[in-house]
């Protein structure tokens, strides 16, 4: 294999891995909240963007390094998620057809957040980027790859692994999965369903925040990323099976690789639409998604 072909192959792998891992993380966050609370969070893209913008503010306006900024944003994200659950989300836990009510509420949140960003950040710049977590390049065969990108790839995959471990082995994770599968049965077995609702909302929202942070550390971004990510996360959740974290991860990674591969053999434009086409076909043949929750 020539160096040029190897370069293209390695770049496809690296793009697939990092994009796939970020897609999978965000979709996992969305599906945890939907699967457990029955809350289709229309504002997930704005949460994602909020994390990226806050980190940008801390690094560019306050001169923090990216490590401290990321930790602060993550901590703040957890607090905001708790506050939101306490002020807004828990009030609809017992509403009939609450998925519709939640969708409307989060659409409102989307409008408010996007308006706020438009009145502030949009006036300050048309593009944003964070300083890398670490500097330098590493040669992987003929391909130079930035150490920052390598680290982010490892962090994204490690977070996915941790999430799986949490859901599989930790008592909270098991309780969460029990509520996913059957709320009434879980309640009969002594699971505090409302506490699990809260936990899953905070966990899911924090994962979306983390996805926004990792994205901002890997790429420059602008305000349009909120819509792109929102649509992508919903598409992954639907194909993977609403409420299935495994589905979100498998489909998220597949999307990442599909985009990278289709962009070589067809075009970057075809790559962007390929997963939406896949979603439509999937809905025709398997309306409940690939994986059961």
């Amino acid at each position, binding site marked *: 294999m020539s160096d040029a072909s190897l*370069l*293209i192959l390695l*770049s496809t792998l690296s793009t697939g891995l990092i*994009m796939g891992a970020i897609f999978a993380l965000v979709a996992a966050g969305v599906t945890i909240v939907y699967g457990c609370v029955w809350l289709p969070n229309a504002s997930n893209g704005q949460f994602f963007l909020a994390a990226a913008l806050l980190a940008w503010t801390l690094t560019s306006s306050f001169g923090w390094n990216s490590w401290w900024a990321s930790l602060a944003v993550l901590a703040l994200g957890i607090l905001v998620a708790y506050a939101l659950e306490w002020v807004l989300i828990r009030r609809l836990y017992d509403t009939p057809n609450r998925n519709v009510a939640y969708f409307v509420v989060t659409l409102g949140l989307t409008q408010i957040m996007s308006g706020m960003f438009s009145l502030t950040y*949009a006036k300050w*710049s*048309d593009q944003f980027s964070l300083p890398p977590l670490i500097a330098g390049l590493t040669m992987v065969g003929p391909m130079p790859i930035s150490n920052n990108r390598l680290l982010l790839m490892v962090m994204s995959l490690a977070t996915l692994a941790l999430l799986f471990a949490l859901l599989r082995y930790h008592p909270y994770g098991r309780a969460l999965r029990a509520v996913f599968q059957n709320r009434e049965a879980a309640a009969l077995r002594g699971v505090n369903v409302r506490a699990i609702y809260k936990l899953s909302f905070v966990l899911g929202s924090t994962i979306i925040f983390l996805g926004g942070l990792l994205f901002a550390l890997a790429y*420059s971004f602008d305000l349009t990323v909120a819509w792109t990510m929102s649509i992508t996360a919903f598409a992954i959740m639907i194909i993977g099976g609403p409420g299935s974290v495994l589905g979100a991860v498998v489909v998220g990674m597949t999307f990442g690789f599909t985009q*990278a591969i289709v962009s070589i053999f067809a075009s970057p434009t075809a790559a962007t639409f390929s997963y939406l086409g896949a979603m439509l076909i999937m809905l025709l043949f398997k309306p409940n998604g690939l994986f059961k929750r």
Partner: protein
Amino acid sequence: MKSSALSRVARYLVAGSVALTAVSGMAQTGNPIKIGFITELTGPWAFFGTSCVAGLKMATDEINKAGGVLKRPLEFIIQDNQTNSSLALASARNLDINDKVVALSGPTSSDVALALYGYAEQQRLPMLVPVAAFPQLTKPGTKYTFRIEPSAVGWGYAMAKFIEQRKPGAKVALMHSDAALMRAIMAGFRYQAPRSKLTIVSDFLFPQGSSDATVQAAQVKAANPDYVIVSGAGAFDNVLTNQLLDLGIKPEQIIHPYGITTQVFGWGSRSVGSIYGTFFDHGLDKLTEEGKSFIARFDAAAGRPPSYVENYCYVTPYIFKQALEAAGTDDREKLRNALSQLKTKEFTSGVPIEFDKNGARKEYMYFMEILSVDGKRTYKSKQQYYIEWDPEVIPVYDLVK
């Protein structure tokens, strides 16, 4: 008696001061000459609209402090179109009917400008577009719309001429977003490239919302071009640039069709040596004293040097001033005729301003090399090339419909 005399004096004083105020008001101001300025203060284009208004306000204040226009104050009624063509159109109607503006201006987005174009032409309302480069804004038959910024198709032509003189027979790769502006630039380049004996070795179009181009950067690297023309929408421009640099493309090989201050900051010190096109920059070889003063004052107020966006919006009130003074009245038809006959120079840089029969400007472009980037405060650049051309030197209106 005493109190009645006092109250009489007080009444005279009040009456006198009211009369004085009225007389002095008439002498200094008269009724303002109103121009509707419909721009993007929110929405995806908010940064451009906001930057534009900063330049506009500086010039309007200067003009009014110096006595206004036709002994009347010049007033720009600024309205936010939210980067939305329908809202822009509603604003235009409102400004036309209720405020009776003499002209329109303001859009920095080509899409919004195109929506206003139809209204201006239909209602015979002069419109001076400060920062929108889509060629169809001055398509043949245009009467009332005038475009200050050169057509984007022409930018592609200018880039080909620049590369032709820098490296004859060069191999060039194109990477650009699927947006109207970028499509127009690349159409001009693709048309001119073979005429300038340049070879396009790869050509990648990215849909809006793309976030990664590592694979395409690797394909470009494999094609071994002499230059890569990079033009991404919004933040994707940075992504493209960084991913090319990551893979070993040298900054000297990268050409950005256009660059504003925040873009140069975004490209950062890694891009020292790369080239960008522009229409105004603080690093130009020939700046007028007024231009230097504008840069210093804008920098002091905004904390960064102005780019061509702010310059065009700074120049806009002065173009209106000259045209209104030439017309001698605020009659719309006479203002339109004065604009079409205007032969002047951009007083910040000295480049000519004159419009052809369709309202397109005598076009020009600078190509700058980045010398250093100092965080988010300033950067240094050096002028490498300057070119002027006739708006229809290539078939701009056929290349982009």
